[in-house]
């Protein structure tokens, strides 16, 4: 029996288990699929943005991992200790060994607040919070329920981060939240970023900037944080610029799993060197990488992982059959950006095309509007949670949304 071993049962790993289980059903006697994760709970990570504002409850965004895996996929709940590529095996921290013929790394990315001096100081989880972890988002919810106002600073430590629009969405939702509580006049919102604008793509930045002005959110660009002064409650950058805060909501440095580093497969942030069009690792042909764990120049986001999963599944079948891999992944990302007050913007872009204006998924028809605020986009974002739990994780194709980015007109002709 040959084995496909998947490390990580988050969005990417779960989708891969479902896709491969489906596509290898005729080879059931030859191949088994094993998936390892250190948690038993699957978190709907886009929900971490909504939890602090009491829009979602904790129950809305967590379910057992096992529920989303086919019965004959083996799920091992253990912490991976190390990958030994030369021996084609993985050792867990408990000392169990798993041989593999094909390894899929889907271990994601998570926050490393210890990378910034003072971040884990005495203000951590008192007046300094993150919302990129379940615990952090929940602690922030409790803080916001009682907070009476002051300087709210929303801050990005360094790029790349998971879901690069989320910090901006947080600022927009905070504006709405405090308006509804009738304390907006007692809150200053400042958005601090190491980039020279509010988003990673110039066209989207331009579209988003007018919203910041409209919502009275002050932006501090080009701010590369050196340390946090807990005593005087301010963040300080490498040239000595200071931003004071009463409440700091930061996105700490994001890093891949430390086990990647231990296994000698990572760069300085523990991301795995990966071919950007095939998703095969650069160091070993039997290792493939998907989602936030890769170092490819695409956004670290669930939509990207969804498009990657479709291509990676095909490539693993080609690899099994000894055929050349498809060089097809184009970096396609599709993000709803919450702008507050029940509206959202939709972005659609890839490695080479910046977000454009238009309609989605049907050119000229919509119903969703690219790069423009609308209520329908917001409904799309909320509907996405249902799609995620019921379709996306199970590897079902999302109707009308193509893996590679469709150019205007082309998709319309096919309908």
């Amino acid at each position, binding site marked *: 029996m040959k084995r496909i071993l998947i490390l990580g049962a988050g969005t990417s790993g779960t989708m891969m288990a479902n896709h491969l289980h489906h596509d290898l059903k005729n080879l059931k006697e030859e191949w088994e699929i094993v998936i390892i994760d250190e948690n038993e709970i699957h978190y709907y990570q886009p929900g971490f943005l909504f939890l602090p504002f009491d829009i979602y409850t904790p129950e809305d965004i967590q379910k057992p991992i096992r529920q989303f895996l086919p019965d004959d996929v083996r799920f091992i709940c253990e912490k991976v200790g190390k990958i030994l590529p030369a021996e084609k095996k993985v050792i867990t921290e408990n000392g169990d060994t798993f041989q593999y013929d094909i390894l899929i790394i889907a271990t994601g990315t998570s926050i490393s607040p210890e990378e910034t001096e003072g971040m884990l100081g005495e203000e951590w989880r008192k007046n300094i919070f993150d919302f990129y972890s379940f615990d952090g988002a929940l602690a922030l919810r409790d803080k916001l329920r009682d907070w009476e106002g002051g300087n709210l600073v929303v801050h990005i430590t360094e*790029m790349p981060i998971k879901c690069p629009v989320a910090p901006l969405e947080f600022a927009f939702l905070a504006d709405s939240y405090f308006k509804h509580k009738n304390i907006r006049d007692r809150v200053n919102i400042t958005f601090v970023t190491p980039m020279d604008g509010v988003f990673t793509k110039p066209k989207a930045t331009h579209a988003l900037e007018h919203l910041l002005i409209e919502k009275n959110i002050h932006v501090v660009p080009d701010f590369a944080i050196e340390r946090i002064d807990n005593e005087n409650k301010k963040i300080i950058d490498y040239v000595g610029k200071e931003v004071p805060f009463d409440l700091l909501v930061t996105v700490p440095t994001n890093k891949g799993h430390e086990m990647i580093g231990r296994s000698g497969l990572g760069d*300085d942030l523990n991301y795995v060197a990966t071919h950007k069009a095939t998703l095969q690792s650069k160091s070993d042909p039997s290792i493939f990488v998907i989602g936030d764990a890769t170092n490819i120049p695409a956004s670290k986001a669930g939509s990207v992982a969804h498009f990657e999963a479709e291509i990676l599944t095909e490539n693993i079948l080609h690899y099994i059959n000894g055929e050349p891999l498809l060089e097809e992944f184009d970096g396609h990302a599709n993000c709803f950006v919450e702008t507050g007050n029940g509206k959202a913007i939709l972005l659609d872009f890839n490695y080479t095309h910046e977000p454009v204006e238009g309609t989605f998924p049907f050119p000229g028809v919509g119903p969703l509007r690219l790069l423009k605020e609308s209520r329908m986009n917001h409904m799309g974002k909320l509907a996405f949670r249902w799609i995620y739990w019921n379709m996306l994780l199970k590897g079902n194709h999302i109707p009308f949304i193509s893996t590679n980015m469709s150019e205007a007109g082309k998709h319309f002709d096919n309908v």
Partner: protein
Amino acid sequence: MLTTIANKTVNLNEEGYLTDFSQWDKDIAHEIAQQAGLDLTPRHWDVISYLQDQHKKEIALTIRNVGKSGVVDIKEFYQLFPAGPLKTSTKIAGIPKPVSCI
């Protein structure tokens, strides 16, 4: 876009970065630095040589890996090139602006 820097004709992209490293020389570097309000010291040159060397090896540049290079730490990197150190230093070094923001 063709333009003249330090009496030499060079190709620049719309952001002012050289598109052909073979056109680069130290006089050009000095003039680009001056436009950015910088006088190049031996420490600047240490960083510039390092960046060019990394670029030759096709290693992607980030503030983080420059800070860990042993050539300069992040603090000094910011002191040498205060406004966006990676953007400014790569422009002076005649190599493309790193694409590190995704």
